[in-house]
């Protein structure tokens, strides 16, 4: 389980996170929802130790992040994170070299599923394909948690469908997933939990099926209530 407890963050003089708390369980897909700039990416980076925060703590399976945790938690940001001069095969070799939890079989499966060729150089790929390589490199690791930042942004609809398919496949298996998005429509039926962010805090954290059952509302309905646009 990933526990985010009351974390705060300033960018210059702007207080971006004013005390954010939520949890994400293994085996569930948790979605952070909020407008652009509310701090979703910052939260994911904070969990990964890629940006400092203060005032609270973040625990991954009860412990603060350390080097062994990086085998258990993988981050797939909204940017590509391998040298673009690399070929896909070289990127995969790199991952295999550094991560004990690299699953070569699964990587090959994803290569096929996404219809990528490993001799291709990343610099020459379209944006959609770069996103797929990103996913491939992240998902082929045997990590307990996968953090995805805006996996559907700027991607054509077919790639989006492919990526959505990954969520219901054994590739996600029993992992914990935290994804951020501002486009909830595509994936409402895929997520377990929604965390609505506004003005630097969590305004509502709820299990999606529960809200449907108890109140007959969709996530978008709840968003309308909470954000009062």
């Amino acid at each position, binding site marked *: 389980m990933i526990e985010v407890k009351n974390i705060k963050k300033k960018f210059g003089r702007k207080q971006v996170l004013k005390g954010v708390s939520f949890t994400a369980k293994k085996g569930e897909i948790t979605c952070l929802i909020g407008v652009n700039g509310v701090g979703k990416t910052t939260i994911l*980076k904070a969990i990964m130790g890629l940006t400092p925060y203060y005032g609270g703590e973040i625990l991954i399976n009860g412990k603060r992040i350390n080097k062994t945790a990086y085998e258990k938690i993988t981050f797939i940001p909204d940017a590509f994170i391998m040298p673009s001069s690399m070929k896909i095969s070289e990127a995969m070799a790199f991952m295999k070299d550094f991560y004990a939890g690299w699953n070569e079989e699964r990587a090959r499966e994803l290569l096929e599923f996404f219809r990528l060729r490993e001799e291709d150089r990343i610099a020459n790929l379209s944006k959609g394909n770069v996103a797929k390589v990103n996913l491939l490199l992240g998902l082929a690791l045997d990590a307990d948690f996968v953090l995805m930042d805006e996996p559907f942004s700027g991607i054509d609809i077919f790639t989006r469908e492919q990526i959505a398919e990954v969520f219901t496949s054994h590739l996600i298996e029993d992992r914990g997933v935290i994804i951020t998005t501002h486009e909830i429509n595509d994936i409402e039926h895929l997520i377990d939990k929604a965390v609505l962010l506004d003005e630097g805090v969590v305004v509502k954290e709820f299990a999606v099926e529960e809200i449907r059952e108890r109140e007959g509302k969709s996530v978008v309905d709840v968003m309308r209530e909470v954000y009062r646009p």
Partner: protein
Amino acid sequence: MNKYLKLLNFELNRFFKIYLVLIVLTVVLQMTAVIVECRQYLKQANEMIYGMNASKEQFLADYGQMSFVHIVTNGWFMWSIAICAVTLIIYVFFIWYRDWFARNTFAYRLLTLPTDRINVYLAKATAIFLMVLGLISLQLILFPVEQGIFRAMIPDDFRQDLSTADIITFSKYLTVLFPGTLIEFVARYGAGLMVVLVLFTAILFERCYRFRGIFFGAGYCALAAGIFLSPILIEMFTEKVYLYPIERFFAEVALGLFVSGMSIFISRFLLNYKIRV
């Protein structure tokens, strides 16, 4: 240790193409220097002896024999060394900034590898150090080769053969890169490594604190310099000499190790708690 070596291997591979270019450039420029200098000397000699009917002795009295020092102080030659030096100095900074500002932010990957982040820092420093040593070695290999060409081009009478050691001493500037004794060599290149570690720390200050970080980094460099040079500075200000040369040497070694250790310690803290991608 394993991951550190893998990272080192990775860093060396990344630079490989540029390194190859530097090697080729060095060879080409230095060969050019040899040939150009020899030809020019021979041209002069021919002009005097055949053109103006002077005797060989007269020419040698006026112009003297040619030694390898001429070649080593030739523009082409010095440029080859300068280009390599400047490239590596730029790379001290580029080796970090490329991970943030290249088309893909590799820093995300480097900082979330299942290894101590300090290994990234150490691998980069080691890579630069090895690359410098590599170029030094290249030069040491090139010397005899170039001297061979020199000997082939200039006849015995017109040539002054010097030992490599003398060539270095007479060239003056080469003594910086090739100090006389092993101890001096180790001390000097060790100090160079320390400078790299200090610069890396300054770079990390900038990466952690961005604009303010530039000032922190500069301040840190000043602090490191101050500590390292303290024996000399103290003697300068008090105008008294406190240490024998041998004592000063050991003091510098100790201070050098201290500054290096301090840089690594601070960098480790910055990487683990303050770094931003």
